[in-house]
């Protein structure tokens, strides 16, 4: 910048690589000055809020050839289908996919509850995951999703749960490109008389178009005798890192739903879910909301069917 004559800094340069290798090469060359972007809906709120500086280079991954088809099904060894969602899949595409709606309904519900239609038509599932607090995460954790990365050398898979832990202590993942979110096949209950308990609740400060205060995703099978199996529960919301409630799942797994199990479950959620409070909602409110939602759903599942 000249000493006497002031000039305005330039806008970021937007790179539009056509394949993964080119994208990774750009990232390696640009380092921290280059940021991967797709919908950009979250990044721009960060820039506006001053949480992040607008970088001098943006690497737009939405034009990458194999990002084009948002959702593909791959047959696994037991002739069951693995669902691969490209990182640049739009939230609206994920929401409207019939395979996802049939087999991963929690994810469909999660998509419906994110932002508003105009944003869902720009924002991507990859972006929601990489925000580390996205509303998709509790649903994806319940489905034990895997992440497919490219680190410039090659592709590798990592479980979502593992990455969420890694991301708490290391920024190394920011140099990798997320290619896809992989959903393993969902086991359907084989026993007669088992009903699915699949619930996703997002509680915000208003009904819709709202940041989450507490998010709960739960999946289980409940038999006619009220025995509960295949229990998976994930919680999140606000700035709280989403996680599975392993202790609570263990407590419930194979048990018979009754008031004492519900009571123990309630205490277990309060003990193991440690949300972060903020100026809008206390940690204790978030915790209690999660416990209430989980236990009320279990209570509903144990009521005699009318």
């Amino acid at each position, binding site marked *: 910048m000249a000493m*006497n*004559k*002031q*000039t*305005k*800094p330039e*806008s970021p340069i937007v790179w539009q690589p056509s394949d993964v290798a080119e994208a990774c090469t750009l990232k390696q060359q640009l380092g921290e000055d280059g940021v991967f972007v797709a919908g950009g809906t979250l990044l721009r*709120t960060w820039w*506006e*809020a001053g949480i992040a500086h607008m970088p001098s280079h943006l690497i737009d991954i939405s034009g990458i050839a194999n990002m084009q088809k948002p959702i593909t099904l791959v047959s696994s060894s037991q002739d069951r289908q693995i669902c691969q969602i490209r990182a640049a899949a739009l939230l609206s595409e994920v929401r409207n996919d019939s395979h996802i709606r049939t087999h991963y309904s929690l994810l469909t519900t999660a998509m419906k509850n994110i932002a508003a239609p105009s944003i869902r038509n720009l924002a991507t599932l990859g972006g929601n995951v990489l925000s580390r607090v996205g509303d998709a995460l509790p649903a994806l954790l319940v489905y034990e999703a895997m992440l497919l990365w490219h680190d410039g050398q090659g592709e590798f898979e990592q479980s979502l749960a593992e990455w969420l832990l890694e991301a708490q202590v290391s920024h190394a993942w920011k140099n990798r490109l997320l290619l896809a979110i992989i959903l393993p096949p969902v086991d359907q209950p084989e026993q007669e008389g088992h009903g699915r308990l699949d619930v996703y609740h997002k*509680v915000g*400060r*208003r*009904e*819709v*178009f*709202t*940041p989450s205060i507490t998010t709960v995703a739960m999946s289980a099978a409940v038999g006619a005798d009220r025995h509960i199996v295949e229990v998976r529960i994930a919680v999140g919301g606000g700035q709280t890192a989403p996680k599975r409630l392993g202790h609570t799942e263990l407590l419930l797994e194979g048990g018979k739903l*009754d*008031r004492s199990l*519900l*009571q123990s479950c*309630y205490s277990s959620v309060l003990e193991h879910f440690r949300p972060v409070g903020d*100026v*809008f*909602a*206390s940690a*204790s*409110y978030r915790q*209690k*909301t999660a*416990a*209430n*939602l989980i*236990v*009320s759903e*279990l*209570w*509903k599942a*144990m*009521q*005699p069917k009318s």
Partner: protein
Amino acid sequence: MLLNRETSGKRWRIRPDGLGKVTGSLAYLTDMSASGMLYGRVLRSPHPHALILSICTEKAKQLEGVHAVLTHLDVPGLNRYGIAHQDQPVFCENKVRYVGDAVAAVAAETAELAEYALSLIEVDYELLPIVDDAELALSQDAPLLHPQGNVLHRSQFSRGQLDSGFAACSHIVEDTYFTPRQMHTYMETEGGLFVPEEDGRLTVYSPTQHGFMDRLQLSRIAAMKQERIRIVSSPIGGSFGGKDELNVQPYGALLALKTNCPVKLHHSRWESVRAGLKRHPMKIAMKTGTDASGRLLAHQVRIIADTGAYATLGAEVLNFTVEHVLGPYRYEHVEVDGYSVYTNNGMSGEFRGFGGNQAIFALEGQLDRLAEKLGMDPWELRRLNMRMPDDSGPFGQPVVVTEGAMQVWNAAEASGLWRERSMPDGDQEREPWIKVGIGSAFTMHGGGLGVGIPDPAGGRLSLAADGCIEAIFGYEEFGQGLLATLELMLIEQFGLAESDIRMIIGDTDLVPDSGSTTASRATSMMWKTLQNLKAPFTSQLLERAAVLLGKAADMLVMGAGGIYETAGRSLLLTYKELAEVEGEPISCSTAFQFPTSDTARTGAHFLYTYAAVVVKVEINQLTGRVKVLDQYHAVAAGPVMNPQGFLGQIEGGSSMALGFTVTEDAVMQQGQYMTKNLDTYLVPTIAEHRGTVTVEPIEHLPQGDSYGPRGIGEVGSVTLAPAIAAAIYKAVGIRVTKLPIEPELLQNDCAFAFAEEAVSER
């Protein structure tokens, strides 16, 4: 009769500005641009309270494409503004008092350049202790924000002997109520286009609720004669009181005059939140007592309003609150003590309801608590203590006699929703954590600015050269439906067709000063204006026509398209033909003041609107969240001038009240907004608006009433909050004292699931 499309018949019309708004073809003032236009930006203080040690604008001035950088040194006239009290600096000289305070402004060739130029302005601050709480600001050792102290205004009222009043009470309730810093959240943020004209005049295209007040204020700042400034102030994308005070205008005007180029400013939502006005957060402590039969004997109120850094209308809002904490009730012994207090928080100011919303939330809460103590139906307690039609006003001032209070009370009592109150669940089976309740509340709300404040009104009717009948008023259309209402009044009162009418508003070069478009006053004043003008204007037209037609004027009438014969109902002469006849221009005008009470009490009102609200709510005890299921509003405001407008105002006001009650609060900590944008400041969406909003207007006025339609622009926003609080208490037995309601207060654990009979109960 309920108000809806079916009951309104032909009066249910497409509003004249509807098509443009729905299709997006209508250009708002902030959509305008001009060739050679520069972009203005304002540098605002990042600190809530600091001394300015130095301001250096050199680097910004050297930036290519920057045409002007202004500070307090560049203000030719008064470096202050404020509708009532001019204490807000256009540019701060040596002290900043809130995070929106303006320090400098730039005009540059692009918006990006202007923003970058702001970053080049160097300001040295010395931080001062922050006064972020109004109660704290009142304490003896609080830092002084203004030389005269931290109290902007104190307003008191008393009657009777409070001590002996309370001594005679059988039941006394005491509580303290807190209301939020609500934001207007107009869809169109503040902005405008400022054009220096070739003849040296300045044209300002910028939203305001009183063009002539902006003209006066800008003339002081720019040291220009008022006549040298033209304010075009309509159409506006929402205001709700928030754009009545100056916002971007001083900067746009000064930058345009300095650069001699058109300058555009338009706040981002971020800047709107930071610099814009909010509703006064209030803390209202009340002690209220009755005798054993439930008659109110004594009422003591202490109000502390956080008015922020500068005055604007903080004093007037407090006066309104002091009047309205008494409400439509009779008491023998009353003492109200109110303070409007400067803090380093964001600016508080005018907002739909004008201090009544806070007052009624507290007052109606007291009535509900007393009813419980008395073991009395809360609605019956209100009837027992209700003011009578010929009672004086809250301050003992003469007021216009109406039966409004009893009318809305009766209407609510008879409403289907209120009759459901003992069985709000009906036959519906609900999950055990869902609780339902029905509550009600009651209010009287003053219209007009009140005693002691200039409150001009009036307008003009003319036959234009092209044969249009022109209705010319100094009001603004900000979405409330003023044009639709005026059009319908002209059609109904003069028999005109839509195509005969041209409405001219919001342009100080063209319109008379009809006063402000605030305080629920515009419809009342347009009606009164047309009443005043009807006879003289009609007779001018008919007499001219009579000469031309060779008929007696009393054989002629005005109608759609022109002049008709009374007997034959056939069109004899079009307005265009009439306009083409030579002669003096046909034009009539009237000017008067909004009627006021004969009292010395500043701000006291004369005309009131009465309202009662019944609401049904559902509480989810798992989350503590409240949903409104159904609403009933009875509004006694005289004849309905425009059914859609009336319904829209009550529904819209109620929607704002819902936000005030359940989601909205511009949270501040240490003088900084925690809600900087609409991702954390949450207004209700369509999903919050469940069920129906039933509106029952009560049009009857006493015989001989000459005041016509009362204002309804604000009252819809006032009464819902206490009704929701009452419904919540009915549902779950918890008293709400703080808005917006914190869900945690209403949250329960899952006791239903741990109970013995958990399985069998359903």
